[in-house]
């Protein structure tokens, strides 16, 4: 077990820039930009003597009914989820390129000979990379996202207070940052299960490629998709090409993106949403539980595990260094 912890540390040391600094800088820059935006708005408004529709914000909120307040709080929650989306996008790019290089970079620079000279099995090595991509990096990203959310709430509270709105009752009590944060943590294992086919595929290519792992990883699924669509166009053989693109190609390439299990049918409900509460409902505990009942999640997870096993075998056999 100690060996495995060391392997995780090793991954973190090597990729500290992507796992730690990328989300931290993203959050920091976003907060600074928000602050700058608020200052500009504030200064501009003061100079022009503009008031929002001639009403003071404080008067507005003090007349909010309990229902309005709940709606408003749900809106804030939604905003918080969207903020974590920024970090999620960063995490997607970090993980994608991390996984593509995970079993390739050390073969290219021949340091694989050093790693293989230590009493560490290939299984442990590959699994440490899986654990890094599913747990370590997402956990750091969630911490950064929570920091971003809290920082943003503080900024908004300052802004509100400046305009005579009590931030404690309108923002902090109406919204539920703690439950949003808890859900982000809860999403880590769900995202991990969902991402397994992508992780398995990228690791397999990373272990297999003698050159250009990025091209192999992207072109093979896309070409397979084109082939299926082409057969479909010929009308002779009917293949379910749309579902192939969605369930295989997209899954292999993009499922490390946190929350990518939210599919079109779910997003379509947004069109009929009556308010922010419905949107937050997308991430309710029951809809998260629903994700776990999808056969697609488990089929993908099994396929991912198989590809990870293949990556381990490939790691053991590759001796082109």
């Amino acid at each position, binding site marked *: 077990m*100690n*060996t495995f*912890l*060391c*392997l995780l*540390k*090793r991954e973190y*040391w*090597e990729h500290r820039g992507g796992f730690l600094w990328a989300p931290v800088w993203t959050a920091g820059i976003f907060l600074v930009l928000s602050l700058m935006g608020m200052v500009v708005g504030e200064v501009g408004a003061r100079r022009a003597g503009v008031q929002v529709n001639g009403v003071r914000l404080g008067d507005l909120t003090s007349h909010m009914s309990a229902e309005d307040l709940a709606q408003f709080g749900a809106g804030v929650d939604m905003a918080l989820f969207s903020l974590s989306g920024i970090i999620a996008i960063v995490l997607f790019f970090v993980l994608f390129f991390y996984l593509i290089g995970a079993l390739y970079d*050390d073969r290219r*620079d*021949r*340091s694989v*000979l*050093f*790693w*293989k*000279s*230590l*009493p*560490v*099995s290939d299984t*442990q090595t590959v699994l440490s990379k899986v654990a890094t991509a599913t747990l370590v990096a997402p956990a750091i990203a969630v911490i950064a996202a929570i920091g971003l959310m809290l920082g943003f709430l503080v900024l908004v509270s300052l802004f509100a207070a400046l305009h005579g709105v009590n931030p404690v009752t309108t923002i902090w009590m109406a919204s539920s940052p703690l439950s949003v944060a808890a859900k982000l943590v809860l999403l880590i294992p769900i995202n991990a299960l969902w991402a397994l086919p992508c992780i398995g595929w990228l690791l397999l290519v990373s272990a297999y490629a003698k050159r250009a792992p990025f091209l192999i990883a992207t072109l093979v699924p896309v070409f397979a998709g084109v082939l299926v669509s082409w057969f479909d166009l010929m009308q002779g053989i009917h293949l379910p090409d749309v579902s192939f693109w969605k369930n295989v190609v997209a899954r292999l390439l993009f499922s490390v993106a946190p929350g990518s299990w939210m599919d079109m049918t779910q997003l379509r409900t947004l069109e009929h949403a009556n308010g922010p509460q419905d949107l937050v409902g997308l991430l309710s505990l029951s809809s998260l539980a629903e994700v776990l009942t999808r056969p697609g999640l488990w089929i993908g997870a099994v396929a991912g595990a198989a590809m990870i096993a293949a990556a381990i075998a490939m790691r*053991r*056999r590759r*001796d082109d*260094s």
Partner: protein
Amino acid sequence: MSAVVHARNLAKRYGATVALDSVSFDIQPGRIVGLIGPNGAGKTTALKAILGLTDFDGELSVLGMNPRTQRSELMQQVCFIADVAVLPRWIRVRELIEFTAGVHPRFSREKCERFMAHTKLKPEMRVREMSKGMIAQLHLALVMAIDARLLVLDEPTLGLDILYRKEFYQRLLNDYFDEQKTIIVTTHQVEEIEHILTDLMFIRDGRVVLDADMERVGERYTEVMVNPDRAAAARALKPLDERQIFGKSIFLFDGVDKGQLAELGETRQPSVADLFVATMKGTYA
């Protein structure tokens, strides 16, 4: 059975090229074996097979283990330095030591730090900031701090200046080697290691063409410097090699009586490099 490495009919081909052609040899404990051969002779392939880094045909056991199926267990007892550039470039000295200490049960952090005290290495340094010589020092300090039974060195001093090269082998001999340990080393700088070797193995075109300890090599091979008038007599004894210096001929003999040769001219012990050149004649032709 106590051989550290036991190989029978070891073979490996890459496509059409034969890297190892049914090679058999044993390496005994407490020896320093020089595995010498021209480029592409199969040295690295043999070492990779011993380290479990490549598939092969035939029978091979290292410390009684199968290197292919038991690589991670084997690596507790075997250390390996490939030509200098293989330490990961992003890692810091401190991280490297912490990692090795964490995964290697036979690594002594205290020993490693003692070896590093003689160098300019600092804990916060990254490998990419180091010169080749410093990387070799770091790798050597790391490996010498591991109490392993077999050390495999593949061109460990390639590209280092002579100060680093001398220091490398001196350290190895003085601070590391003892009768419990075995070292296999390949290098093209034969002159620099011939005095530390106990055994010599020449490999050519995937075959072992010489496998003997240094004493036997000394008994078998003789060099004679012969005046032109006696050259014909010397040639009659079927020398391995003949070359001309200052109007005299130098003949290299294998297994000819030294007394008999002394009558032809001045005899001496050939260097491993001369022996190598004579044995490998025509390799690239």
